[in-house]
């Protein structure tokens, strides 16, 4: 057990070193760096403005008011924001395969996943997380807070990060088989984020079932938020779904880990 802890601590330390190096490298072009930080916050800001404008036309969407949608939006945004900041670079694994840099990484005494994830670490992604936090705080006004709800909200945010974390890794692994399919993963990561920005009531029942049992993105925020808002499940699914997000996160992490291992095992160098 002590060995595992030491290994994990070592990996984190190495991650921080590589990430710090990329931050220094990004600061070499200070103008671009700061414009990127502002731009990244602006992207997500305008995204929420778009949602706000929708509510300018209608009082509620799928039976949910603006503040309630903000709660869903914020929770999902924090989840994908943290996952994207920490390991979003895993999307570029195909590029490493194609250009042969993965070979160099394999020879270094640092776990491959750490190297791939810390590569091109981008602080600008903090812009998205801070926007999501603000939106979440605004949405929190629609919740009648109790101790249990505060606890569940924390569990929800952590699980959301871990679920998106697994999505990034698992779907990026496809690139070990077809190198130029980076965008495929976006459908699940950013697509999953976009889906969970809306109340699930706008989707037909079949879509919701798919998002619950197949690609379990509904556990990122939908089921926990129903509990936070004290709403019965509009689709009649069991109320205890609100509490199983951590279990789902554990499952997706396991699947992602297995996919990554088999992807790396399948990897054959391009020889360049």
């Amino acid at each position, binding site marked *: 057990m002590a060995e595992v802890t030491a290994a994990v601590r070592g990996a984190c330390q190495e991650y921080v070193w590589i990430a710090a190096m990329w931050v220094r490298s990004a600061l070499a*072009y200070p103008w671009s*760096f700061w414009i990127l930080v502002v731009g990244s916050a602006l992207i997500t800001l305008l995204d929420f403005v778009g949602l706000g404008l929708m509510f300018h036309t209608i009082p509620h969407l799928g039976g949910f008011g603006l503040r309630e949608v903000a709660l869903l939006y914020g929770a999902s945004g924090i989840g994908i924001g943290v996952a994207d900041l920490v390991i979003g670079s895993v999307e570029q694994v195909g590029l490493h395969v194609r250009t042969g840099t993965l070979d160099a990484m394999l020879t270094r005494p640092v776990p491959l996943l750490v190297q791939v994830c810390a590569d091109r670490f981008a602080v600008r992604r903090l812009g998205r997380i801070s926007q999501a936090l603000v939106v979440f705080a605004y949405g929190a006004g629609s919740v009648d807070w109790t101790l249990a709800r505060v606890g569940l909200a924390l569990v929800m945010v952590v699980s959301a990060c871990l679920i998106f974390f697994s999505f990034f890794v698992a779907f990026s692994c496809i690139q070990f088989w077809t190198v130029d399919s980076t965008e495929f993963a976006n459908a699940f990561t950013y697509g999953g984020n976009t889906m969970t920005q809306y109340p699930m009531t706008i989707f037909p029942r079949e879509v919701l079932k798919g998002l619950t049992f197949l690609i379990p993105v509904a556990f990122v925020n939908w089921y926990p938020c129903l509990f936070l808002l004290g709403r019965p499940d509009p689709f009649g699914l069991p109320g205890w779904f609100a509490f199983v997000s951590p279990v789902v996160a554990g499952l997706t992490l396991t699947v992602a880990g297995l996919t990554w291992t088999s992807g790396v095992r399948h990897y054959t160098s391009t020889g360049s």
Partner: protein
Amino acid sequence: MLYAAVAVRSFRRFSTYRTATLAGVFTNSVFGVIYSYAYLALWHQRPDAGGYDATDAVTYVWLGQALLMTVALWGGGTTDDLAERIRTGDVAIDLYRPVGLIGWYLAGDLGRAVYHVLARGVLPTILGLVLFDIALPASPLAGAWFVVSLALAVVTSFAIRFLVACTAFWLLDQSGMRMLSGVLAIFLSGMTLPLVIFPEPLRSIALALPWASYLQTPADIWLGHRHGAGILAGLALQVLWAAVLMAVCRAVLAAATRKVVVQGG
């Protein structure tokens, strides 16, 4: 013809990445489905929002997904090559070629756009037809005008992306400006939400800006919300913006050429 040759080769260059194209079509379609349901929920409550009906709204979603790459809403295209060549200093070679630099990159970008409209535009549109029964062009004439409008959209978008790439002459790296420009384009083109349902005065302002060219104007022609004089007015505004922006490109390039210091040269 030289520029045609450049365009054809650019078309071929972009068509090399088949799996990437398929992956992109898949992703566009997933987003198409999500936004369709969101808009259906909105138009279910306000069946006439922005003068669109529910079918118009869903058609608009799928047109947006189909044109996302063609108009290079997020940036990209040959202007990215230019920015990289400015950063490395290779742009010096482009500058002493006996061919206009703007024309060279515009031709390449048009070739790219033709590829993207065929590869990334047609499939999502068919999927939209199958899944959501979207509207086809209001008439064959509307279809033809749509194509003209789309071509103008690509030129406008090229001019803006060219200007962004040119900032690399001063900033060395375009990535910050590229992102800012992409953000503005996504919001002001009506990709986030159709411009027609923006509240006034934001609606009128957005409709007068060059980004309206990207999606709102072609979509309105496709949907038959513009006809006769309306089409001509829309196209005239597109031509105006394209001409103004191309002129600015010329001026900026001239200024940049005067100051260019080639690294390592």
